[in-house]
């Protein structure tokens, strides 16, 4: 059994090593076909013009993207040079407005419509300068300055966005061109690579995890957790955390460097949805795999507790079916991508105009999806929490919770239990909830009024801030990257706006509580130590008080690790839920 586990560990390390190595495995050559796939003819010409060494091989994505960026920049610069109204032209326009009153008609004297570039300059001047039509100036200098202002605006907004590569286009092209230009083992032997990475990792992990069933009897086995470099913030934990953090930074901000991994899952994506993979397909695939493999580990570890087994199977199911397979299959059926278990405000882009428009454009199914999403937020959350506590979502259904309860289980003890952390948590999670509501209100305002600004702030900017700051940086980079350093529920505890919403209802209107069993607590501290949400469970248990906390996700581990059978997750009549601290057993005060 021990040998089997050692072999398993080795296989896993090899598989994981190959996976990591693949990140660096590609070479990149820019090809005509690659350019043709993603650029307009004009852009292709410009690109080819600037490409310094044609057909050069770049050995890694960093050099290649640097090269792409410099070409795009050069293209942009030459476009600016060619298409910005020159000082000479401006002077000429001034000359053609002799009466010191500006007229757009004067442009015809300066620009020749039959020359393409001049026609472009003219039309730009009209769109950016038409507000000057008929304006009288005191002298030539004033008019010249005003026209220069128009030219500056054109340079800033009117050229790169339509002819060249603006911020969004270049970000996309960096990724798309890197992916199409990649050459290497992943491209040549995708199935082999799939086997050598995911295959070996899964086999290895299984060999490591499964023998546990026969090695020790069922029951809580937290032996050595604080003697282990992985689970006690040792070098292994820090290394794992750094790896995860880097992964998320690349995923959300520099996906162009992940193309080797994305190429590897292309065949799976083609099979499932008939389209090549994007970075979020790779992410979803990895995510589901982690939940499944580590879910098996979780089930084995807590196999004496049917509560833990049931809820682990549940998160494995919802991740695989609802978050991963169904949305991809919907795409294959030409239907909108939709995760039926994701709930606003965790699903923060549910009300984004593009999302709503896509759903509306998809007939009855789309409308059903909008109704379903609204019903989850408005009905399912309060009703579910009233009857079962927020756990029905957080530790039975949610994908973030699913990862936390499986991949994150080895780190649950690292959450901060101090009162200080609790104070911070209350401020931070409710701030994110407010942020999500404000952001969504702004988005809807724009959707219904068409006005992009509320009190001078662009609603598009707000949602961009939310997406980058909360959606990517907080939920991903911090939320998962910090598992091995701050515990497995960092996002759920400090950031998730849906958890905040569920929590408010759980705190004030719910049948759920963790019951303390009379006077049986011995203050040992297992419950608090293993609470992933950082609740000092013992504080309540040793006073004979039920635990009613908005943050409790009902994972049930406090009850599982309690050596004296003191804690139990219960749904019961609301009466007696918030009981006064009192301990059973001492009758001295009865009279």
């Amino acid at each position: 059994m021990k040998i089997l586990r050692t072999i398993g560990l080795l296989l896993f390390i090899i598989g994981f090593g190959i996976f990591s190595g693949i990140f660096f495995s590609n070479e990149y050559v820019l090809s005509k076909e690659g350019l043709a796939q993603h650029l307009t003819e004009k852009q292709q010409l410009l690109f080819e013009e600037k490409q310094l060494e044609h057909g050069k091989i770049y050995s890694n994505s960093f050099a290649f993207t640097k090269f792409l960026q410099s070409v795009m920049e050069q293209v942009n610069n030459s476009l600016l040079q060619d298409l910005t109204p020159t000082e000479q032209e401006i002077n000429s326009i001034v000359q053609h407005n002799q009466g010191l009153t500006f007229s757009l008609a004067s442009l015809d004297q300066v620009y020749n419509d039959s020359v393409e570039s001049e026609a472009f300059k003219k039309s730009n001047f009209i769109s950016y300068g038409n507000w000057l039509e008929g304006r009288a100036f005191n002298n030539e200098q004033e008019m010249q300055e005003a026209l220069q202002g128009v030219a500056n605006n054109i340079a800033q907004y009117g050229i790169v966005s339509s002819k060249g590569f603006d911020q969004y286009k270049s970000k996309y092209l960096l990724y798309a061109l890197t992916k199409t230009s990649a050459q290497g083992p992943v491209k040549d032997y995708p199935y082999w690579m799939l086997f050598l990475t995911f295959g070996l990792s899964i086999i290895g992990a299984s060999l490591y995890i499964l023998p546990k069933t026969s090695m020790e009897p069922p029951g809580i086995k937290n032996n050595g957790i604080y003697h282990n470099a992985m689970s006690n913030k040792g070098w292994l934990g820090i290394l794992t955390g750094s790896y995860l953090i880097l992964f998320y930074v690349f995923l959300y901000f520099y996906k162009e460097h992940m193309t080797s991994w994305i190429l590897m899952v292309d065949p799976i994506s083609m099979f499932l949805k008939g389209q090549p993979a994007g970075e979020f397909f790779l992410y979803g695939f990895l995510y589901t795999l982690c939940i499944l493999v580590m879910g098996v580990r979780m089930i084995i570890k807590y196999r004496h507790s049917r509560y833990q087994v049931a809820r682990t199977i549940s998160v494995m199911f919802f991740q695989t079916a609802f978050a991963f397979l169904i949305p991809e299959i919907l795409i294959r059926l030409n239907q909108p991508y939709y995760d039926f278990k994701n709930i606003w405000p965790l699903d923060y882009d549910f009300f984004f105009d593009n999302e709503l428009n896509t759903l509306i454009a998809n007939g009855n199914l789309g409308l059903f999806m909008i109704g379903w999403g609204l019903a989850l937020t408005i009905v399912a959350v309060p009703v579910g929490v009233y009857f079962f506590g927020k756990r029905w979502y957080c530790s039975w259904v949610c994908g973030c919770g699913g990862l936390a309860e499986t991949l994150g289980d080895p780190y649950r003890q690292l959450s901060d239990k101090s009162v200080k952390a609790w104070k911070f948590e209350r401020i931070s999670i409710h701030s994110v909830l407010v942020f999500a509501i404000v952001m969504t209100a702004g988005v809807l305002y724009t959707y219904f009024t068409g006005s992009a600004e509320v009190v001078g702030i662009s609603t598009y900017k707000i949602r961009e801030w939310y997406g980058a700051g909360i959606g990517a940086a907080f939920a991903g980079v911090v939320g998962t990257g910090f598992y091995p350093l701050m515990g497995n529920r960092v996002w759920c505890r400090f950031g998730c706006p849906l958890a905040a919403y569920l929590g408010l209802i759980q705190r004030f209107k719910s049948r759920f509580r963790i019951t303390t069993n009379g006077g049986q607590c011995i203050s040992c501290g297992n419950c608090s130590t293993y609470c992933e949400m950082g609740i000092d469970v013992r504080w309540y248990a040793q006073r004979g008080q039920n635990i009613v906390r908005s943050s409790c996700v009902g994972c049930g581990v406090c009850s599982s690790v309690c050596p004296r059978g003191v804690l139990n997750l219960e749904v019961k009549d609301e009466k007696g839920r918030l009981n006064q601290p009192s301990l059973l057993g001492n009758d001295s005060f009865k009279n």
Partner: protein
Amino acid sequence: MKHIVIVGNGVAGITAARHIRKRSAYKITVISAETKYFFSRTALMYVYMGHMKFEHTQPYENNFWEKNNIDLIQDLVIKIDNNKKTLTLQNNDSVVYDDLILATGSVPNKFGWPGQDLQGVQGLYSYQDLQKLEEKTPTKAVIVGGGLIGIELAEMLLYKKVEVTLLVREKSFWSNVLPSQESALINQLIQKHHIDLKLESELKCIHADSEGWVQSIETVDGTNIPCDFVGLTAGVSPNIGWLKDSDVESNRGILVDPYLRSNMANIYAIGDCAEHRTPPPNRRPIEQVWYTGRMMGETVAATITGNPTTYQPGPWFNSAKFFDLEYQTYGVVSNVLQAGQKEFYWEHESGNFCMHFIWNSADNKFVGVNSFGIRLRHEVLDQWLQKGARIMEVMEGLRAANFDPEFFKRHEESIVMAFNAENQNLAVKLNGKKSLIEKIFG
């Protein structure tokens, strides 16, 4: 202002301090030589086994004490002079008190075995014991004494892959407390964990090597067992050696009246170190468990703050965990069935669950229950015992008494069925209905 000094910062002393603070503005000082801050003694094993760090065993954050205006002194009290109301400390000067609470706990029993003070021989009670144990991992250990601490120590050593022999003087593990059925169950469990369980085996002496380290032990029947560690876990006694020359009257423990007052009007004793001159009904004079320490702390706090209160513990309860098997007891279940009592014992075929009910044969009054592997609801059991419920009511109400987590397999139906088969004159019908979960999952 009145100055209350508490010697000992275990659960008894700390509970007293907290409740005095709740009830008054008195100056409170807690003195302990063991550690500065209160920790849960019962959790030491988890620190050794890496379930927790030591700091996790401390139920209150370090700033709690200052915030609640409770002074802590880490020092050893060596002398009491109650005429001057003064305590002499080993390192600091001295402390003057108005009222004194002694909550000094216990020390592991040593019965004068030759070699009992050798290196590598220790008990498991204090923080210092844990530190000593962590210094050097033995390869082969002998544990003397078949009680709760003994089996805990065995479990701890198994984690470090130490070969363990457990010497038990009685015929069966903890058989001075557990009835034979439960005791047999634990015997099997011990053997299943590859512990060499030696029953009816008594320590005679411990032999040392040339460096004064334990080398082997010898039992009364002459068996020699080589080992490099001996755990002495044959019970504990009140920690009162340091009081011998004082005026505080003691027997095995410090003698106290129902107000937990010693022979001195302003000196109280609570927890493990107290011995009741007249124990409450059905209780022993010295009870060394967490819960009684806590309750005496609550009670003495009331008395000291001007609300004289006699110590009246409710129905007895206790709990423990043997490896993966949880144990709870409510009421009185003696190791041997008492005259005039009847019993019903149910054990699941897996050996992972059992329940043992005791009642009076004359009036069928429920007396107590032992439960292994099934959690029971303290509130319900406490009510039954307080009001003198009949065994029939208990059996009928088993569903309401269950405290197992959702989805756990329920055994009430099999238990009641077996009870009815054995006690046809008392046959009952189980109250309540199966929940949906029980219907689906059993």
